[in-house]
């Protein structure tokens, strides 16, 4: 194991002592380096494999540096933009849904989020492309793909926001209010910071989901690495399929790795 988990012994001050188990993960340099090195090796291996194959005209067209670079960039945009929208929608929604005044329609909102994830993304993309959802009239392509991805990935972030805010000890909130902090102040200074680790875990899940699901965008002219995979499948060319699939996996692992670092950095001190 390259990760060292260190129990924090100095729980001197009262608010921290009142909280659920506290631990801090400090990763060693080696553990930070492992994933990028591993992924670089995978890419190098893929390059070596492909370059030793005898490539036909179809492979040569589908596997140019240009096509692959474009596909990777499109894929990052799809996953990135959709996750930004997921965060902008799901976290405020999660906050609102944990406030007492929303109790009456909380169920409906959660059901909607569940439907978003339950509906198969490929079906939703097709519906968007067909203009069946008349009220959202979007052009086929990037916008439609983003809508499909956002609908699919809202649930994990929303759920984690609700759980993260819900697990904050009632006594701390009471103490905060007792000290004269406003409702909004309690939310901003106590609840949200304490919920950040769980919310971030949800965002990380959403990111990885989006990298995977974005491969389906190839079917509606939104490009991405999916178009390489689909090209390989429809022309029965293993080398193309392998390239698309391995690059998607590498991208997902890389983004998960970066999100992990972001988690370490963004986690409030002392948690």
């Amino acid at each position: 194991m390259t990760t060292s988990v260190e129990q924090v012994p100095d729980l001197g001050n009262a608010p921290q002592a009142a909280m659920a188990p506290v631990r801090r993960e400090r990763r060693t340099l080696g553990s930070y380096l492992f994933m990028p090195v591993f992924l670089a090796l995978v890419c190098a291996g893929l390059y070596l494999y492909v370059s030793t194959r005898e490539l036909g005209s179809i492979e040569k067209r589908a596997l140019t540096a240009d096509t692959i670079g474009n596909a990777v960039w499109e894929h990052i945009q799809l996953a990135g933009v959709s996750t930004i929208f997921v965060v902008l929608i799901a976290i405020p929604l999660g906050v609102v849904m944990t406030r007492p005044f929303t109790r009456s329609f909380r169920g409906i909102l959660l059901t909607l989020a569940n439907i978003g994830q339950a509906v198969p993304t490929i079906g939703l993309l097709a519906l968007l492309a067909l203009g069946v959802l008349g009220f959202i009239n979007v052009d086929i392509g990037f916008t439609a793909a983003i809508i499909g991805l956002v609908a699919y990935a809202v649930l994990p972030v929303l759920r984690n926001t609700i759980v993260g805010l819900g697990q904050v000890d009632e006594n701390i909130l009471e103490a905060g209010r007792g000290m004269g902090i406003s409702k909004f102040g309690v939310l901003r200074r106590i609840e949200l910071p304490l919920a950040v680790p769980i919310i971030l875990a949800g965002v990380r899940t959403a990111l990885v989901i989006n990298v995977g699901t974005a491969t389906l965008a190839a079917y509606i002219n939104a490009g991405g690495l999916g178009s390489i995979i689909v090209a390989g499948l429809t022309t029965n060319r293993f080398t193309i399929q392998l390239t698309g699939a391995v690059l998607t996996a590498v991208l997902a692992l890389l983004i998960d790795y970066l999100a992990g670092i972001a988690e370490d950095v963004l986690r409030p001190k002392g948690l």
Partner: protein
Amino acid sequence: MATTRKMRTAAAMGAALALLVSGCGEDEAGGGGGDGGDLDGAELTVGAKEFTESKVLAQITAQALANAGATVDESSLSGSATVREALESDEIDMYWEYTGTGWVNILGNETTDLPEDLYGAVAEADEANGIAWLPNAPMNNTYAIAVNSAFAEENSLTTISDAATFIQENAAEGTICAASEFLNRDDGLPGLQTTYGMEFSEVVELDLGLVFTQLGDTCNFGEVFSTDGRIVSNDLTVLEDDMEFFLPYNAALTLSQETLDEYPAIADIMAPISEALTDEVITALNSAVDNDGETEEDVATQFLEDNGFLE
């Protein structure tokens, strides 16, 4: 291989009918042997690929053979992607294959070294595998470029050459919707553009099913298969491939040589039926299934009856 009672009855009725009309049946040299239907006592299995057209063709064949006295196993009519393997391993006796598929996918040739007589070349080469190809039907289920009929009329487009000229003059309107396979194959878009010396202004990559709905909306031109029933329902016009770029995909019944040697009557029964299967006819049959929700079985019966193949 459980034969359903229904099928047995049908076969019996077919045999009885064949007896009644035996005056019309040709005298087969070394045929089925019985003096009733030409295929009395024959037990045959007809396979199909997993899409509508192949299943319709299989139904037509199965019913025609049953009509001639054969007992046809219904279990394989629902279609599968591994039908060629099934034929080679004698799990089925026959299915409809396309000449282009035979040349490229089965025999492993390139699309560039196309023989003059594709059917002849494929049939001859496949003999080595013990597979016989009956003469192909006129229907040709190949790639095609389609446009909205109104758009075609407005700009007087009838051939792909017309389209090439149109795109040269109206660069912004040369958008094409196509599925991934067409965009990547040598005998798809790359070769098409070279042959006709044109370049579509924008390529929109879609799932094949979405091409039909986006034609006229996202793009003016679309890749389709020439006998697809949705050409009818979406009121599309197929542009003629005047430079004969696309590989011919004529349908032909393929069967093991053994089966054909045992029941040579199959070739005679299928010849007139195959001849009647033109692009228009098969497109209409596909449309009846895909658009009107009829079963392949009913559509096949209707076709055989209308053309007098079911006496």
